[in-house]
């Protein structure tokens, strides 16, 4: 196979390659120009038919842990990065960042989702609950209490995601047996292997009948 890097001839592959490179350079200089331009803001309402340019920030309204706020986000910003980097809500953890581990689980409009695979700009008008928003002041949520009581963690890194997922698991009515809990908690990986204790914690909260 011809070495693409030394491609100087006139054969078709080379031309294609040069085309691709030209496209790349055009893109790069365009992006550089955009990066140097002062950042602009767009309101979410304007996005119906218009387009937010790549570096343009979009104004969205989010309710985060009960507090409604207007914020400006880049289209490419994930909800996870937004929460951790812009809101300083570092309780939500970045594990794999590819939707495989569940450490970044938060509730959006009350349903558990992966914040690492969610774009912040797509959450406009929604209610976000993170682990920081679960406790009632200094009073821990029953699931937090149960995780402590049952030693549902060792290193603790997956724990915020586990707890957010566990609360949703009960709300969804998917905690009626240990098997069902294991199945519906399978999106949360624990490398310390605290699974049996996590299942016990969830069973206790479920059977305790407390409001979650």
């Amino acid at each position, binding site marked *: 196979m011809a070495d693409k890097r030394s491609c100087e001839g006139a054969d078709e592959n080379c031309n294609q390659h040069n085309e691709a490179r030209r496209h790349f350079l055009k893109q790069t200089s365009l992006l550089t120009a955009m990066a140097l331009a002062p950042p602009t803001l767009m309101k979410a309402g304007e996005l119906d038919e218009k*387009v937010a340019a790549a570096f343009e920030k979009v104004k969205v309204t989010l309710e985060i842990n009960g507090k409604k706020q207007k914020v400006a986000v880049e289209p490419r910003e994930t909800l996870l990065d937004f929460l951790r980097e812009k809101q300083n809500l570092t309780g939500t953890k970045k594990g794999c960042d590819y939707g495989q581990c569940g450490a970044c689980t938060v509730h959006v409009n009350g349903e558990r*989702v992966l914040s690492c695979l969610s774009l912040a700009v797509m959450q406009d008008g929604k209610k976000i609950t993170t682990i920081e928003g679960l406790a009632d002041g200094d009073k821990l949520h029953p699931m937090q209490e149960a995780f402590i009581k049952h030693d549902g963690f060792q290193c603790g890194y997956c724990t915020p995601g586990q707890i957010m997922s566990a609360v949703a698991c009960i709300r969804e009515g998917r905690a009626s047996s240990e098997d069902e809990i294991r199945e519906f908690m399978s999106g949360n990986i624990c490398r310390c292997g605290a699974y049996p204790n996590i299942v016990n914690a969830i069973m206790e909260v479920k059977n305790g009948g407390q409001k979650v």
Partner: protein
Amino acid sequence: MIQFQYMRPTKEKAAIDALVKDQNAMFIAGGTNLIDLMKRGIMAPEKLVDINKLPLRKIEKENNGIRIGALALNRDVADDKLILEKQPLLAQALNAGASAQLRNMATVGGNMMQRTRCYYFYDTALPCNKREPGSGCGALEGFNRMHAIFGFSNKCIAVHPSDMSVALTALDATVLVSGPKGERRIPFGDFHRLPGDQPEIDTNLEKGELILAVDIPDAPFTKNVHYLKVRERASYAFALVSVAAALNIENNTIKDARLAMGGVAHKPWRLSAAEKALVGKPVSEATFKEAADVAMQGAKAFKHNAYKLKLAPNTIVQALKVAAAIT
């Protein structure tokens, strides 16, 4: 992730126009696969057209079946009363896929559009004809444990990862799409394509076409159905082999049968010949074994996936046994 433009149209036409106008624009719905692929640099759309404002979320009864909107969430379909009552096989398949969090995000249309999980497709340092046409297939002579045993080409031996699509293939669903030339209907079995010489193209959707809904016709497959998924851990893993089985049994005789397999081909693999082999036969393990033999005709394994030649027929037999409740 590289930068991209973002728009959120409220009208179907605006969404389709955006894709027609811009060669490198893509629709985004749940984003569970696309954002993953964008982070890894495998896909790099210059514009994302967020279709979540389009009114395509309903699951409703139609004249002769059920219509599921393309934006209905996987979780909502799996929990839907009508689906559980009329099409329990689909609910089973959906709950066998991904995790609870992902099912809360992923849409029906997005599930159909997800890309293969072949490791060569995902590793940008390695050749892959699907990711970079003409670069070669790394899996052909490489690690091909999870790969196809049916319908592959010498350009690509990847498999389609969707569980939901296996059930919808078996259930004779139809896909309703809208595009620059108007609406059209695609039988579910023709929606995904085999790799041939163009493995970079997964489906028969044309440029700018948007999935609006999936229609499932009513059929008497409410009781004797089973979706069996074999994977390397008990939950939250892609299928090595999966089987969607639906039987209509009267007086211990099989009146009608539907069978499709996942994890074995570039598209959900309908087992039409095996279905025919089942009809009119008595419910028994022997009948199911015969059908599995028919289903496996033409299968061919690679270096690391020869186990599928045994696993697949065994999975067919087991799925049918559970569906017929003779375990």
